[in-house]
């Protein structure tokens, strides 16, 4: 998790992953820790993880390493949180998905939009008489670039998901913690 290129006080984009129980109000518990330090959550997504019953938050925020270290420890302190980690972009594989709505008329006027779709490796999700929905998966800059290109023809609606990320390790980072906890539970029983 050490990235020596990034110093303690440089502001950069960090990705925080939080593994938690599936409990009401958890999002709130996690987000107030950012709010307290006046940190803006840049993107957020919540989903299941590879471990049954364990939920995974992926949060991005611009801050310093020394700040994010403290934030992550305070998130971990919440009772229903199993573990929390933070990463720089280089330490993870990450993606976002974006949807764009354009007028079907504009699409049919020429080949230009179709060329763009091909060039950006995007695809058409739905076409009807009135509008067409285009989907693109990629990094923020890539989905942004397609937006800029499409917008020359007019984008009626646009939405981008929060980042989802996976580490370069083999398994979920939290599994070690769960194993340790299981040992503790068995000991406690004796």
């Amino acid at each position, binding site marked *: 998790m050490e990235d020596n290129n990034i110093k303690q006080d440089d502001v950069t984009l960090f990705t925080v992953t939080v593994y938690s129980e599936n409990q009401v109000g958890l999002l709130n518990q996690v987000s*107030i820790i950012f709010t307290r330090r006046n940190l803006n959550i840049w993107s957020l997504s919540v989903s299941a993880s590879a471990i049954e019953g364990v939920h995974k938050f992926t949060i991005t925020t611009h801050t310093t390493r020394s700040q994010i270290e403290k934030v992550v*420890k305070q998130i971990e*302190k919440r009772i*229903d949180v199993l573990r929390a980690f933070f990463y720089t972009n280089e330490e993870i594989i990450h993606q976002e998905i974006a949807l764009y709505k354009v007028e079907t008329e504009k699409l049919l006027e020429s080949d230009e939009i179709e060329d763009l779709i091909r060039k950006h490796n995007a695809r058409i999700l739905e076409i009807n008489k009135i509008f067409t929905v285009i989907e693109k998966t990629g990094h923020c800059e890539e989905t942004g670039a397609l937006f800029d290109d499409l917008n020359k023809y007019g984008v009626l609606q646009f939405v981008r998901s929060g980042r989802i990320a996976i580490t370069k390790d083999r398994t979920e980072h939290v599994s070690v913690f769960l194993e340790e906890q299981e040992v503790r539970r068995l000991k406690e029983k004796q």
Partner: protein
Amino acid sequence: MEKITGSEALIRSLLEEGVKTVFGYPGGQIMPVFDKLYDYKDKLRHILVRHEQGAVHAAQGYARVSGDVGVVLVTSGPGATNVITGVADAMIDSTPLVVITGQVPSPLLGTDAFQETDVVGITLPITKWSYQIQSADEIPWAIARAFYIARSGRPGPVVIDFPKNAQIGMMDFEYKKCDFIRSYRPVPPTDPHSLIQAASLINKAQKPFIIFGQGVILSEAEEELKNLLEKTGIPAASTLLGLSALPSGYSLYKGMVGMHGNLGPNKKTNECDVLIAIGMRFDDRVTSDIHTYAKQAKVIHIDIDPSEIGKNVAAEIGILGNAKDVLQKLNPMLERRKFEEWSKEFDDLNEIENKKVIIPETQPQEGDLNMGEVVAKVSELTNNEAIIVTDVGQNQMMAARYSKFNKSRSFVSSGGLGTMGYGLPAAIGAKIGMPDRHVCFFTGDGGIQMSIQELGTILQENTGVKIIILNNSWLGMVRQWQELFFDERYSETSMKNPDFIALAAAYGIKGKKVDKRADLEGAIKEMLSDNEPYLLEVNVIEKGMVFPMIPGGKCVSKMMLTTTEWH
């Protein structure tokens, strides 16, 4: 299995957890529980406070002296919002509490029903855990979990929001204590490597210094701390909340650190080569200017809470774990040493403070009475055996500075939040928790009026609290800052006060007012002569000052000894 109501399940669950006393106040959305309480009167004592904030502070006082979890029972809406200050106070001071708030029936949640407030939402940031019960069946599980969370690891407050439908719903009662939560690790494992590194650093140190906090008391590590000092000869100082963990007279105990702490330990913080922090969190009232704090020292930080390591002060070595366990493992690895020279340097500095500050404050020959001399006299006449409770302000700092202690868990004060009004209910809770000890409560003329209604609780319960109002007719601590930093512009700090003795009398509490030195000792003796409540009002010097002092944001190595002298 027998079917009982949710209300009864709550009470039976509390009994299963060994609860004997509950502090509370009834209201519409908690009435079924209070109704059931009526049947359990002989098993569960309820203390009816006069304001819900008082219930929490009383539970805090109870928890701090007894080491048990303090329990609070209040209604929804205003009852619940009235507990907020106390819950925040317990959170920052790591006091174990279970606070149960009534709530509107579940179907009404989110409809702005009468006396509905989002209690879980409000309390999330100021609790260790905050949970709304969904149905009667959940009660034993939720209460067992609440007590486990409140008392384990770094203790703290838990709020359980209890909708009325769950109070009246029927359920099969079966209780199982909680000792494991998959997502929660109360005590992090201690890395043996960190112990080896710490031991080698300590064994090589030339000027080591220990600062300990409430973690020593909470983990019951008083003996281990003393063994460590005996063996290594390292001088030690306490934070405000660590007070009483070591006996005041112990030779290696060098006093208190912080803004109004002692000269020796504050200055030596910036001269030691190894600083060993045990169960304390480097609060800014301890460190002042963090950028000049202990920069020369290698810091070893022992704490049960991983988020404390490196939070304020970078630690060379962080040792995770419960202070008692850590010290038990660390002590055998340390060499037997002596630091006579170094230890004496603390004493020499403290002697300067003694001459310049302590003797003039505690043994004046003439003029008005001083706060410090009242505190010192009470301490002396109780043989340093009393539990000392404070409010907030000059009275608090004077009580902390001039009380002496022989036993642990003898000092109760609002440290992290600095809550005026904390003291009177906390003293009531402390007396209920330790009925056989004198509980002497020092307060100001301002602070006592923030929870003066709790005299009614004393009246009702005949709680033998000894209240000592150090009356300076000012919001003294704020006035002190105005004198020092705001050109003596005394904006809104002068107090016109009621007749406190008459007020006490209205509540059936004996009392006496003293303004002459010659009358002080007699009055204190009278106060201490029985186990009844008593209010002693002492008129002290109006413009007294708490010295020494590190002005906010300044460096710990330079303290004001008087308005004009620094050391």
